């Protein structure tokens, strides 16, 4: 709609700048003209383009009188001059900046204006969305600093939120024009990074700033940048100089900020951001640059770092490795900086020999740890690298040698050698080591190839290895889609598991630089014929296909043109379409329809689907029913569902990923469902299927209709719940108490199976003493130690859980005589401090709690249902529940545990430790026997057998 009122002041001026971008400029201008705010003007500033920009803008101006055109006398080569010119020509009360290749959200103007007027703000900032094309060729929107824009916020000045300066863009903001003019705020001309200074100056001068959660600006990062090797990247030291120069200018502006306390805070926040963001950006790539670049860059950063409030900033930074980097930069420790850089390229990678001192973990020592400042800077305990198990770790593995063994027309045999760091003795010297090299095309591996590494040796803080591989025969790429194979290293250390990592190098060994080996893609040599060894943009050693014959050159060039989005050819569209179809195929609605159709197929006689805790592990009663089936040589088809990975699941069952197509098919056609929690609610169970719900614990906390959550449900939700529950045909109970609580609370129609829990059979087995001894030996528990199992219940939030007693204190008092096993709820995790290791072990990830029961001498818990199962063992129990009030606030219990606990009930560390010290195998014996009887009278140790006999003995019904 054209402007209604030409004479009135426009509410908003949108300054659109462009240089030789006539193709995209109209889209940017239209995004401004099509705003739901009509009363605006668009000032297009052309940086003296040599294309037909003037004509294009003239056409736009003819269509809409709100467009004005300004052309610079000569090309300025940056964004500053055009934007400043825009400010000079602006007539609106507010002003925004838009680049010719980006677009504004349709409601940006109105949202900005409404916020600005409601609070009389000098500056309004909204969410910027970066629009990428991802690896699959699909458009992906990534918000810029989303944590700053989660809700509307009104700040009196930048001091209200010193972190504001993190968002340094100038384009996602709306400025009061008089504010810019009064304070002479302009873009600096002749520098890169002009946004940084402009936005910081505006923040620091603004009297009122409003942040709105609305997307306002779409930054079109459409052109996928082809991955370049770092060493090939032509980096310009001027870029670094400008960056540091801009930071110094911002600091100078900050010196004029009136509020002194605020000034210090902003300075600190800015220093933190500089270390965590700017320094990281450059440090990451530094080792791959030229020597001159490295020297000057280090000098620039060192000089600037010295002007910052380092002590306070180091203490505040959460990115601990970046802090270590800043410190090593100051100390001019180049080898140390290289290790930091290796970590910054992949944050999970441990690239140094960590040092432990007084229970803290440091990046390195080299004498730095003698001073307080060094300890502050190099402390990386929070990063948690030392807590990871070997399979979770990513130990830096560097290529040290590459030698050609033999190259013929069809063979290309090379020897790769390297070394892997071994910080804090992660890999002990006495475990058997074996290793593989793996060749893998990126994240989305179509195919991968592994070869055994012949020599692996443990040399204290390094693992050295060396092995041969015939690249031409071993690595068989498809061609075109997998041009690049990363080299990975997999180290298997006995029972500790396998660690996988990428092999890195800063410089390739000399033999590798010019090396080319024969390649044999499946799509024939028409798509490539040679392998070259390169270091990719993340510092990883890779094999890359190169084309030496003319056909392959053309094929690859055409594909590259299309896939990078600049060509926009038919190939790209085809690939994108295929990707979208693949995405649609995973649409839940489609899955529901297909599931309904599959349910019409006949049931597969005797087939059983097992699931435990929604596929999290192979555990609990379903596991023991499955083992009973196996014990009896059951003939029907047996399937286990897994959620994340297949670790620990039985090899002789067919394994399906939860919610996969195979999962739908298995469930639709199964004769039996066996599960302890619930198959997805939307999956209706057909009449011919028998659902055996084993459940996962007797209830202390109220359940079902007795909980606020269910009481709060509307009729529809209640019906959905009832429908899900009514799928159960049989429900395992441990005693009549379960019927009074669980069965009634869920208004269940299922037939209660009065057999007890299969998972508890072992606890009542006649051989349990032998079993216990065997398990303790397997776990390696010292025979003379009292083993305590601590199993607290779920705390309302998932994630890390911190107990209300100190593990260190426990280790001090009981370390010599006791061993504490900590088992957090499966939705929680726990971390054991270094000093308490030895006395305290985290067993949260061990799948089978029954085996932990057997291996322990006593149980410590609060409100967890493990107390009911453990009572069958007739071993002591201690209750430690310091937060009863908080815990029962939102949900009641069926009985008062404090009054009826079959063991000492404690609420603080002191009484808890006293109870532990006084514990004997006989304590509370009568109470706990009565407790076991009261809640589990049907537990006879034969539950799995009874379930088998009833349902599976005839091989199906």
């Amino acid at each position, binding site marked *: 709609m054209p402007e209604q009122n030409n004479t009135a002041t426009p509410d908003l001026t949108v300054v659109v700048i462009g240089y030789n971008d006539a193709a995209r400029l109209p889209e940017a201008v239209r995004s401004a003209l099509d705003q739901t705010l009509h009363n605006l003007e668009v000032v297009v500033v052309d940086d003296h383009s040599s294309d037909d920009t003037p004509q294009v803008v003239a056409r736009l101006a003819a269509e809409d009188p709100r467009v004005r055109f300004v052309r610079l006398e000569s090309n300025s080569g940056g964004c500053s001059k055009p934007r400043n010119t825009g400010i000079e020509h602006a007539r609106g009360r507010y002003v925004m900046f838009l680049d010719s290749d980006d677009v504004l959200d349709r409601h940006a103007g109105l949202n900005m204006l*409404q916020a600005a007027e409601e609070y009389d703000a000098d500056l309004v900032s909204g969410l910027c969305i970066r629009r990428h094309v991802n690896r699959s060729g699909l458009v992906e929107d990534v918000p810029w600093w989303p944590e700053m824009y989660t*809700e509307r916020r009104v700040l009196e000045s930048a001091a209200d939120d010193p972190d504001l300066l993190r968002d340094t863009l100038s384009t996602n903001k709306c400025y009061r024009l008089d504010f810019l003019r009064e304070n002479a705020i302009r873009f600096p001309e002749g520098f890169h990074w002009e946004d940084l200074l402009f936005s910081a100056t505006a923040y620091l001068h603004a009297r009122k700033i409003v942040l709105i959660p609305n997307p306002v600006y779409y930054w079109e990062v459409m052109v996928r940048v082809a991955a370049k090797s770092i060493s090939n990247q032509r980096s310009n030291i001027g870029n670094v100089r400008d960056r540091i120069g801009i930071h110094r200018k911002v600091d100078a502006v900050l010196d004029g900020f009136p509020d002194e306390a605020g000034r210090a805070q902003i300075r600190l926040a800015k220093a933190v951001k500089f270390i965590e963001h700017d320094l990281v950006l450059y440090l990451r790539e530094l080792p791959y640059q030229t020597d001159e670049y490295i020297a000057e860059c280090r000098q620039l950063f060192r000089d600037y770092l010295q002007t910052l409030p380092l002590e306070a900033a180091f203490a505040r930074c959460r990115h601990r490795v970046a802090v270590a980097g800043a410190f090593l930069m100051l100390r001019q420790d180049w080898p140390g900086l290289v290790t930091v850089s290796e970590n910054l390229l992949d944050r999970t990678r441990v690239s140094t020999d960590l040092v432990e001192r007084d229970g803290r973990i440091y990046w390195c020592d080299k004498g730095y740890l003698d001073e307080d400042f060094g300890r502050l800077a190099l402390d990386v305990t929070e990063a948690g690298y030392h807590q990871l198990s070997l399979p979770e770790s990513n130990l830096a593995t560097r290529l040290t040698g590459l030698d050609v063994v033999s190259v013929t027309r069809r063979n290309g045999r090379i020897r790769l050698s390297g070394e892997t760091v071994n910080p804090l003795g992660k890999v002990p010297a006495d475990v058997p080591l074996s290793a593989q090299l793996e060749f893998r095309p990126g994240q989305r591996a179509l195919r991968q190839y592994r070869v055994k590494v012949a020599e692996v040796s443990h040399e204290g803080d390094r693992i050295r290895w060396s092995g041969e591989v015939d690249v031409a025969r071993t690595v068989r790429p498809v061609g075109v889609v997998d041009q690049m194979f990363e080299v990975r290293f997999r180290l298997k250390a006995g029972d500790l598991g396998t660690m996988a990592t990428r092999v890195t190098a800063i410089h390739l060994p000399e033999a590798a630089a010019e090396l080319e080996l024969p390649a044999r893609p499946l799509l024939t040599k028409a798509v490539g014929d040679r392998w070259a060894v390169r270091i990719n943009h993340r510092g990883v050693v890779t094999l890359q296909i190169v084309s030496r014959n003319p056909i392959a050159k053309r094929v690859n060039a055409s594909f590259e043109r299309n896939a990078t989005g600049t060509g926009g050819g038919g190939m790209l569209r085809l690939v994108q379409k295929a990707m979208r179809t693949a995405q649609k195929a995973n649409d839940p609605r489609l899955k529901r329809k297909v599931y309904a159709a599959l349910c019409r197929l006949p049931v597969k006689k005797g087939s059983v689907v097992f699931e435990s805790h929604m596929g999290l592990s192979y555990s609990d009663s379903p596991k023991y029913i499955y083992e009973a089936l196996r014990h009896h040589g059951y003939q029907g088809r047996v399937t286990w569902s897994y959620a994340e990975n297949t670790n620990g699941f039985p090899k002789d069952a067919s394994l399906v990923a939860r919610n996969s197509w195979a999962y739908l098919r298995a469930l639709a056609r199964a004769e039996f469902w066996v599960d302890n929690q619930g198959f997805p609610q939307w999956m209706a169970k057909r009449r011919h299927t028998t659902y055996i719900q084993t459940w996962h614990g007797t209830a202390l906390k109220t359940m079902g209709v007795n909980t606020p959550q269910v009481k709060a449900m*509307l009729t529809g939700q209640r019906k959905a719940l009832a429908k899900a529950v009514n799928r159960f045909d049989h429900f395992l109970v441990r005693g009549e108490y379960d019927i009074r609580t669980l069965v009634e609370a869920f208004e269940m129609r299922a037939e209660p199976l009065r057999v007890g829990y299969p998972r508890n059979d072992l606890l009542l087995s006649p051989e349990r003493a032998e079993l216990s001894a065997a398990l303790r030996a397997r776990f390696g528990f010292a025979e003379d130690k009292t083993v305590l199992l601590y199993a607290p219940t779920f705390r309302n939030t998932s994630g890390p859980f911190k107990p209300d007693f100190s593990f260190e204190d426990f280790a001090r008092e009981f370390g010599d005589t006791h061993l504490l096993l900590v088992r957090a709820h499966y939705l929680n995790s726990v971390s054991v401090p270094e000093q308490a290791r030895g006395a305290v072990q985290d067993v949260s990830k061990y799948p089978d709690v029954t085996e932990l029961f057997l291996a322990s001498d006593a149980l410590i818990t609060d409100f967890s249902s493990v107390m009911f199962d453990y009572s069958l063992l007739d071993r002591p129990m201690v209750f430690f529940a310091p937060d009863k009030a908080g815990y029962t606030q*939102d949900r009641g219990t069926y009985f008062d545990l404090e009054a009826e606990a079959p063991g000492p009930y404690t609420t603080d560390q002191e009484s808890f430790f006293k109870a532990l010290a006084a514990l004997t195998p006989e304590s509370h014996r009568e109470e706990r026997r009565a407790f076991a009887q009261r809640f589990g009278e049907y537990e006879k140790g034969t539950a799995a057998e009874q379930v088998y006999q009833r349902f599976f003995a005839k091989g199906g019904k």
Partner: protein
Amino acid sequence: MAPIRDIVIVCNNIDEAGGAQRWARSMGELLSGEGHRVLLIGVAGVANPHDYAAEYEDGRPPYRTALLHEKPVHVVHRPAIDVRLRHPRAGLRHRAYLSLQQEGADRLSHLVGSLDTENAVIICVQVFAMEWIAKADTHGIPVIGMSHESYAASMASSRGTRVKKLYTGLPRFVALTEQDASDWTTKGGMNNAASMPNPLPFPATGGADPDAHVCVALGRLSQEKGFDLLLEAWSYVAKARPGSDWRLKIYGDGPDRPALEAQAAALGIASSVSFEGATNQVPEALRSGSIFVSTSRAEGFPMTLLEAQACGLPCVAFDCAPGVREILQDGVLVSLGNTEAFADRLGALMDDDDLRGALAKAAPDSVARYAPDVIALRWERLFALVHR
């Protein structure tokens, strides 16, 4: 001085005795009172219209009304492909519905055709009516879309997707509370959301007696209003205070009444609970109590909480929606469904005369921000904004 405007308010229907209609009628009065020319449009007529005209002394409301369809409209969705193949006539019925809808839209185009586009505003009260507005020619008059329920409630029904589809391009879309507007922005992907609360229907003058020892609840006796939970909580309160003279009065009627009466008897609280039936004298009913209680499972912008505070009642309510939190800034909020906690908090308020008196005294002032003139001013600013 704000300009005189033509304001067109479009509802699904304007003749039922429902919440949206009440709101539209009171807005009609309020904006007419400010001097605007208001036209209330119902998409369709209803079978048993409420006689709104009779509520005015001269039998004539201060605004004009019109209907797009005289008779009730029955929606015919586009049948799925397999249904269309098996029953070709199902497709025809849908086509007939579409052409009926277009007739209504044409009538709307005609009704707004003569208005001055520089000053006129269309308010779409319910997203269903937006289908007609979208098909009509509105001559560039800005449209403000509204949602009269919480974000969560919208998303739990098909209205969520329809709001996203039909309201996205409008200059402004208003939700009932700031929190709902924020939810629509950050979770719902709507980028034009603002908030606009409902006005108080009568002046906030207080008048309830904190020493009457009566808890009062008011609403339709249906599952979502949660009276079963209220009785449960009341039974805890009563059990903890044997011989207390406190009583619970429940105003309203609905399908669950027999079940609720039976529940009260089963819980043994029948003697202290009375079912008063529906009332059309809401302020009087409220002023007969000393505490207002609400155990709704779902709400949008609960007017009864607003009205209760206007009458000087301290309130205890389940925290079931952003609207409750926004209205009840000085009341007692209990986590949804926790009847024990509700009983605890209510009991504490019953036992503490001083606290109750203080809350009662503060209640009318705490809803002053919903006074009709305050809300009318906010609307004026919104009208000006969409014309910018």
